[in-house]
């Protein structure tokens, strides 16, 4: 039974300001660090492509089932985000190790022929970010002090 009330002058002004603000709403990128490598606004894909991310995609289990290349793509192209962190976790689970000096990921190919407290000498594969491929490295010394 209260019925409508007439808006006072101040509320009319506020509504006018709100309407002008409505013309340039905040965008998701306004609240996020600059993403140098991936554009923020999703690229318009054909409607028959999945338009919404799977609901459980921020679960660790989801990342574990991604391919190695996908995990490396996420790690290198989604820098500074939760996705990078989850990809790193999944890679470690798949026995890859991140070398902070060489800024890349290594995986032991076989039991190293020399192991000391500081390093392991052996054959590794590593992810070559420039070539975007895995490459083999014989006789490589994996120094522990550079591990994160």
């Amino acid at each position, binding site marked *: 039974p209260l019925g409508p009330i007439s808006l006072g002058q101040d509320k009319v002004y506020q509504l006018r300001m709100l309407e002008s603000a409505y013309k340039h*709403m*905040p965008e*998701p990128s306004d*609240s*996020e*660090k600059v993403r*140098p*490598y*991936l554009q*923020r606004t999703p690229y318009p894909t054909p409607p028959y492509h999945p338009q*919404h*991310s799977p*609901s459980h*995609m*921020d679960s660790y289990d989801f990342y574990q089932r991604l391919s190695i290349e996908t995990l490396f793509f*996420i*790690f*290198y192209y*989604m*820098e*500074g*985000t*939760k*996705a*990078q*962190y*989850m990809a*790193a976790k999944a890679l470690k689970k798949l026995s890859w190790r*991140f070398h*902070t000096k060489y*800024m890349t990921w290594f995986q032991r190919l076989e039991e190293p022929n020399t192991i000391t407290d500081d390093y392991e000498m052996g054959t590794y594969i590593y992810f070559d*970010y420039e070539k975007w491929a895995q490459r083999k490295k014989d006789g490589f010394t994996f120094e522990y002090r550079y591990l*994160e």
Partner: protein
Amino acid sequence: LGSDLTTLGLHLNSPESLYSTFSSPFADSPSRPQDIDYPVPQEYLIH
């Protein structure tokens, strides 16, 4: 002023908390992991 609140893009039955992926009061879907700035180890900031 009633509306179906399950259509606002929030997983209201999610066992996880909603705030940690809440992207905006004006967004129709939660933030994706690649949208969330995260305190990763410095070494991960390759670029």
